[in-house]
């Protein structure tokens, strides 16, 4: 207590000055509306700039949290979008009918990424405990990424689409002509789209989307655009070079897609191939 008194006595002149200055300012604003307005304006500017800097620093500190939230929100939207396009006109309502949900989307971070080898693998931070299973497909916000190859409790390895001998069913968005997509090595943004018959019309700049004729990727996910094509010496098929929409060298957030009807699809495929023998 003593030190407070000492402090007050020591700075009594300054404290008196501040006190009287306060009275003077109140008096001034009371006497003139001009000064009142000006003072209020000063107050507004002060409080505005202070709260702005506080909120800026707060938002900087909470960026990670906010990113997480955005990712979750994106995830929900992505799931809605994928299911909407696969279900088509059946689900035009805002609310989701859980019976119609064919694809469940789960967000993940890429922990390790490779793109310079002949067979490239990614590692993501979700595993069996998060419900990730082998053969689920992985996409990013711009396009397809790969297929889950192996899972541990907390991590999964993903076969990148930049993997030689790996073929993906795809189609031309405009004409709907199917073909298969493969990577020959080399540039990480270029793939080959083959098995498209020359009876289909193709143009440079046409979009290629996933075909949906396998249990992996839902149909209609954009993959790339046609960079160049050639129909000579290929026996009735085009040889098309694709430029990927997705930058696979700069991946951070990906989405894992679980096809709920995958086992049903595979069973049916198995039985029909047995029958046809």
């Amino acid at each position, binding site marked *: 207590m003593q030190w407070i008194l000492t402090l007050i006595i020591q700075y*009594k*002149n*300054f404290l*008196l*000055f501040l006190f*009287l*200055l306060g*009275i*003077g*300012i109140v*008096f*001034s*604003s009371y*006497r*003139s509306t*001009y*000064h009142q307005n*000006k003072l209020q304006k000063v107050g507004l500017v002060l409080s505005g700039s202070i709260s702005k800097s506080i909120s800026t620093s707060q938002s900087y500190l909470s960026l990670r949290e906010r990113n997480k939230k955005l990712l979750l929100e994106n995830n929900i939207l992505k799931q809605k979008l994928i299911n909407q396009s696969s279900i088509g006109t059946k689900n035009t309502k805002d609310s989701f009918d859980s019976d119609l949900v064919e694809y469940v989307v789960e967000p993940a971070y890429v922990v390790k990424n490779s793109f310079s080898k002949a067979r490239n693998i990614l590692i993501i931070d979700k595993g069996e405990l998060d419900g990730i299973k082998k053969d689920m497909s992985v996409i990013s916000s711009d396009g397809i990424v790969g297929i889950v190859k192996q899972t541990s409790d907390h991590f999964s390895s993903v076969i990148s689409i930049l993997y030689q001998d790996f073929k993906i069913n795809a189609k031309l968005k405009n004409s709907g002509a199917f073909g298969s997509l493969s990577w020959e090595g080399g540039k990480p943004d270029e793939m080959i789209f083959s098995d498209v018959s020359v009876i289909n019309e193709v143009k440079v700049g046409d979009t290629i989307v996933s075909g949906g004729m396998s249990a992996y990727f839902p149909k209609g996910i954009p993959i790339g655009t046609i960079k160049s094509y050639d129909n000579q010496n290929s026996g009735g098929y085009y040889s098309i070079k694709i430029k990927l929409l997705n930058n696979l060298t700069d991946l951070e957030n990906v989405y894992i897609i679980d096809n709920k009807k995958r086992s049903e699809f595979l069973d049916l495929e198995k039985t029909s191939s047995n029958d046809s023998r």
Partner: protein
Amino acid sequence: MIQDNVKIAVQFIIFALLQVYVFDHVNLFGFSCPAIYLFLIISYRFEKSEFLLILLGFMIGLIIDLLQHSSGANTIATLFISFLRPFIIKFSFGINPDSPSIMNMNTKVNNQVFYLILMILIHQLILQSVAYFDMSQLFLIIRNTIVNTVLTFIILFAGIFLFKKKSS
């Protein structure tokens, strides 16, 4: 001591009335008016209580504002100058002023002039800034500050000179 305080109280009333009813009507160049009530603060003895000086400064400013029906600029400016006076004295006369007042014969004239100009200039600068309270009126603030400082200085210096001559 009591005599001193009575003297200050009488001076207080005289200067307040003189300021409002005589010097406010000078209006030299149409805008200038000397702040002669500053004499109270300037001539306040150096060794006396600063606490009382701050109160005195506030009171004289407040009375002038009330009588002038002005916005409170005098209150704030006089309060500021009363608070800053010890620093200005140190700056003008050195850490230990030789004399207890500007009215004393022993003080050097250039120190007195410096002290006087500094006090008036700072007071006028604060007074005009608070009165206009607008950065876009900077030219008017500076013009009024300079003209009023010169005018107030002439009147106060003449007053102090005459007073000294008379007392000697």
